[in-house]
């Protein structure tokens, strides 16, 4: 076994412009090679790197840099996550719901001069909230297929749904479909020919928030 390179030995291949000098100081490699090698977890093993004391010093430096980078990011994220909530309100207060209102769906009214509409966005909201009132199901994207602007014209509805593991999917889908028909009948005059429910993801394993650390 070769003797360990002293930890305090200075690494000198920092020439920013001269690749030849960089390679001369790193047994023919470059910092870029070594960084890629670390990215691959030093696999497959490369003896010309592993057996070079110069490379070892440089790899140690790169690892230290990564550690510092990771710590810096963690520290910054923690600081930003600790801020009070005013920045969230500032964003949400500047948002207009009209951006996602979609098409206008007419509602009948006894007066010939009155024009009542419900927006497509509001209908999607009704569908989502119907799902949110049930357990173990998330309603995702909802689409209204057909000409919603013509009163009485039959349309169909497509709904993406995530169901939690262990649920009886056909039963849950049927309950959801029924609840959606009831809600639509209550708030709109849409003639709904079908509600197609796509169970798109059975895993339902939530993404860990970005700032959550793994252990």
């Amino acid at each position, binding site marked *: 076994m070769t003797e360990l390179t002293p930890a*305090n030995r*200075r*690494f000198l291949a*920092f020439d*920013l412009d001269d690749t030849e000098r960089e390679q001369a100081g790193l047994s023919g490699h*470059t*910092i*870029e090679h070594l*960084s890629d090698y670390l990215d691959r977890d030093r696999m497959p093993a490369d003896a010309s790197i592993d057996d070079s004391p110069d490379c070892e010093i*440089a790899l140690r*430096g*790169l690892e*230290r*840099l990564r550690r*510092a*980078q990771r*710590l*810096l*990011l963690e*520290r*910054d*994220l923690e600081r*930003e*996550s600790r*801020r009070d909530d005013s*920045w*969230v309100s*500032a*964003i*949400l207060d*500047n*948002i207009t*719901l009209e*951006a*996602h*209102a*979609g098409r206008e769906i007419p509602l009948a009214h006894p007066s010939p001069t009155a024009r009542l509409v419900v927006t497509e*966005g*509001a209908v*999607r*909201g*009704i569908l*989502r*909230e119907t799902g*949110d009132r049930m357990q173990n199901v*998330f*309603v*995702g*994207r*909802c689409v209204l297929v057909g000409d919603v602007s013509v009163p009485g014209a039959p349309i169909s509805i497509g709904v*993406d749904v*995530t169901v939690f593991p262990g649920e009886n999917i056909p039963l849950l889908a049927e309950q959801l479909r029924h609840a959606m028909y009831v809600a639509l009948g209550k708030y709109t005059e849409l003639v709904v020919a079908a509600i197609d429910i796509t169970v798109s*993801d059975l895993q*339902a*394993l*939530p*993404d860990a*928030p*970005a*700032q959550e650390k793994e252990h």
Partner: protein
Amino acid sequence: MPGTLREQVASPLAAATDQMLADRAADGDLRAFEVLVRRYGPLMRVYAIRILGSNDESDDVVQESFITAWQQLGTLDDGSAVKSWLMRIVSRKSIDRLRARRQHVNIDDTDAPAPDHHAPHALAEVESQTEALARVLAALPEDQRRCWTLREVAEYSYGDIAAEVNLPLSTVRGLLARARKTLLREMEEWR
């Protein structure tokens, strides 16, 4: 009515996947969007601060980014990619700010938001490695700092960085290698 509530109660949506949240937000669900704001807002601010320095501009850029995101969510095909999509928006807005700022300050020709002082030897003893790294990152030339931040904060691949900064892949690799060598050299100084 649906879509107009903003309750402060913990929502089960906080546990939903990015895909689910992005889909719902694209359909106009403000609560789902709020969860995305909380989930990625801090990272976007860290990004903006690395590019612009810590100031009101970073706040503005993150706010503008989310407003743009809300308006354009319908154009995002793959909701599970919402994180990198948000990082791209904040990256572009940060660069726009930097350019606008440069047009106002053309005499004072510094190219970084810049450390207040540049005396690594004197500071080495009192400064932690992370603080030192933050300082050296801030002093990198703009193109290197941008590539580095896309790589390390936004977690972009080399190819995605090249597409984003509109440079050949080899140039991006060169900029990152240069940044890495500068950082390594500075770190050697602190030991």
